């Protein structure tokens, strides 16, 4: 019996298409897997179903009636529960308090804590035996926190359970327990949607699989009928070579090493990372989302005071424990989240563009307004930033143009190493092209070296000379030249090869 049917869903974010007439069907008592590369739309689909986003077009039918939820809470009232990756727990409460939060039972005026503890213990025992439900959530490790999140969703007795990459933080054994619980739920008639990047998990637990690519469904595999072949699945995710292969510019091989990183360590995010960056090279950092790539970029930019390991720039040892030291060594970062990390949204384009200059020691007391205005105007020109004038507040610009400002503010600097943390995320095609044109020009003409992290594999394929794949904080593969293609990237990211 069909529990949920999503038809012809369309969703755009600014100029970027996230879902293009996508479909999804969930059946009672079945586990449906959602697969797809970063940005393929599978997460967006889940979020539209549960009301976090609203679809631009299309319909969702739940138990026969048309629904349009405006918040996860509304969906919850209807029996749809979702477990996200970003935690929605209250760290200062205990496990059991979190599980029953919002749905506490009370006898008269007072809460019935005994019942709550019992109920929580039952659910948690199934998922993670031995976890004391009276512990405070802030004492737990990420895996345990994820289990509590899942327990919370299950406690609401949902009829449709959506698990968005629930296993990302879990260890093998915990995953097995989770699967056990999922099977029990399915016996009770719950429909489950399950997303994971680990192919073996999907193949083990799912009854059928829907594969997304570029916002569309490209394959619907029923595991009771179709054959389970990982390579086939990977090729669905990446798509056959129907696209014209973009000519990759062969850059002249230059063996001079600009940056040498040895045994870089930071918490659990960066584990023993070592690599070399050659002058005039674009080195890519790829892999599944959240494997430490963003943290690696921040570490190289001097953001973490406690980072361990050695870094050599042009043969000289340098310390990267403050952003100012990275900047003085001309290692410049274009941060990943431009709104949170890169821009002063209320300030003008001009102010944003010249801001980094203020950190330099040689900066005069009175900012030379005319000189800087001219420089700013030059930058706007070079990058084709669409703005009425330099004094417009930067939040009036489109996403793509905002990103150009984030890149542009470093333009006047002599750059040794440019760190790009997903520079084209959420940026429209035209602005993306402008940005990469500029960067590749700088690389060929001025021998600037670039470390590029992109969540879109296409960008990596098109621009990188070499590509390092990260997984759980470590570098697990290195691809060079023609080895860099979609298949190889996805396969190594998912640890199939």
């Amino acid at each position, binding site marked *: 019996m069909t529990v949920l049917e999503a038809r012809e869903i369309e969703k755009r974010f600014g100029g970027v298409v996230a879902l293009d007439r996508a479909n999804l069907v969930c059946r009672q008592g079945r586990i449906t897997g959602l697969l797809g590369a970063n940005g393929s739309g599978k997460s967006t689909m889940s979020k539209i179903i549960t009301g976090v986003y609203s679809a631009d077009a299309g319909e969702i039918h739940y138990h026969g009636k048309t629904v349009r939820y405006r918040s996860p809470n509304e969906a919850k009232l209807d029996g749809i529960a979702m477990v996200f990756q970003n935690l*929605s727990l209250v760290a200062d409460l205990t496990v059991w308090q979190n599980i029953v939060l*919002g749905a506490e039972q009370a006898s008269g*005026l007072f809460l019935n804590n005994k019942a709550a503890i019992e109920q929580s213990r039952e659910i948690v025992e199934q998922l993670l035996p031995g976890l004391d439900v009276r512990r405070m959530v802030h004492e737990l490790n990420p895996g345990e926190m994820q289990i509590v999140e899942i327990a919370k969703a299950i406690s609401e007795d949902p009829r449709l359970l959506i698990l968005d990459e629930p296993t990302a933080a879990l260890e093998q054994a915990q995953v097995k327990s989770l699967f056990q619980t999922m099977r029990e739920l399915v016996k009770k008639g719950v429909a489950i949607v399950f997303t994971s990047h680990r192919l073996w998990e999907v193949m083990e637990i799912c009854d059928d699989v829907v594969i997304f690519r570029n916002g569309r469904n490209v394959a619907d595999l029923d595991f009771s009928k179709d054959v389970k072949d990982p390579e086939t699945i990977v090729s669905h995710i990446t798509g056959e070579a129907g696209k014209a292969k973009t000519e990759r510019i062969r850059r002249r091989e230059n063996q001079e090493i600009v940056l040498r990183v040895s045994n870089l360590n930071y918490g659990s*995010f960066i584990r023993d990372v070592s690599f070399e960056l050659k002058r005039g090279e674009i080195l890519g950092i790829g892999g599944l989302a959240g494997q430490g790539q963003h943290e690696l970029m921040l570490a190289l930019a001097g953001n973490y005071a406690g980072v361990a390991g050695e870094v050599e720039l042009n043969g000289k040892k340098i310390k990267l424990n403050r952003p100012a030291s990275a900047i003085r060594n001309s290692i410049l970062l274009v941060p990943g989240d431009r709104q949170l990390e890169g821009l002063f949204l209320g300030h003008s384009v001009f102010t944003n563009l010249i801001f980094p200059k203020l950190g330099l020691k040689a900066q005069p007391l009175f900012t030379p307004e005319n000189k800087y205005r001219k420089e700013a105007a030059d930058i706007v020109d070079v990058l084709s930033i669409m703005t009425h004038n330099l004094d417009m507040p930067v939040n009036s610009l489109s996403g793509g143009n905002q990103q150009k400002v984030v890149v542009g503010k470093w333009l006047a600097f002599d750059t040794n190493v440019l760190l790009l943390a997903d520079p084209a995320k959420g940026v429209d095609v035209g602005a993306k092209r402008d940005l990469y044109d500029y960067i590749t020009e700088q690389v060929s003409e001025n021998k600037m070296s670039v470390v590029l992290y992109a969540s879109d594999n296409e960008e990596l394929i098109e621009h990188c000379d070499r590509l390092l794949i990260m997984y759980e904080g470590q570098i697990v593969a290195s691809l060079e030249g023609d080895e860099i293609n979609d298949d190889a990237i996805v396969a190594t990211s998912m640890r199939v090869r």
Partner: protein
Amino acid sequence: MKNNSVLKRLISNPDFSRLLILILMFVLTAVLQRNFFAMRSIVRNIDSFMPLILMTMGQAVVIISGGLDLSVGTALSLLTCVLTSVMRAGVPITGLYALVVTFAVAMAIGAINGVGIGYLRIPPVIVTFATSFIWLGIALFLRPTPGGETVDWFQAFYRIRNIETAPAFLKAFGEIIPPSLILILIGCLVWWIVSRTRTGRYIYAVGGNSQSAYETGINTAWVQMKACMINSVFIFLTALFFVGQNGSGDARMGDPLTLKAIAAAVVGGIALTGGRGSVFFALIGALIFSFVSKIIFFANIPNAYQTLFGGLIVIIAIAASQIYTLSSRRTGQESKLT
């Protein structure tokens, strides 16, 4: 082996340390104050500690819910002025009216602050800063100079041991259990009840992570408003005590208590960021604070320097407590900048 680790865990537990400090302060005060254990001294001590204790507990509730209330001092003053303005000496029924009206005013104060903090989401510091002047203004309007009237039975309750005609057993009762202690117990009872209800749980949830609480369907604004109104109950009880003891209302008497209440709450383990701490330990924080003040008093520091020391203690206490409270929480594994 086992004993060592139990001991270690006990010491690093901040709550245990607070109890230790309390006992230490208690002992020091006992040593310095003559007749510490005399009934009269005990009663007087409890009387002098009581305002801070109740104000601290109320403030703690607001802070836990994610707010902060800078207007508690002037609110207290206002309530004393309302009490003494409604009551008319010689007309016993006005005492009852006064209680009802003053309680209503207290709830209004809590509601207004609550609307500002919870619904309008104005930073609590600023909005209660603003409202503190509204309370002050109204208080000055009612009582430009300290004064006012009270009814006999209201004050009798506080002076029972001094009234000749009262029956002997009531006098003895008044000796052993001073009214201030009863008021503290009422306060504790109020919180004990609240903490076992949904509201109590939600106060912690909203203060701990208001976004998560909101997403779980909790009405965060209403919860914060309730927290402010619970605070008002504590302020109301304190006002009763002041008027009972002094027989007059004063528009400026509450001013020094605001900062002390906040500091005492922090000493008691309430984190200013919200979501953590126990109201009962806030009480202990207030006790520690009060004992330290007594110690300074008995150490014969000249009167003139006492305000100075008061301020210094606040800073040291808050700095130490804040550092201690924050370090006891395991640092998160999330990737955070700076």
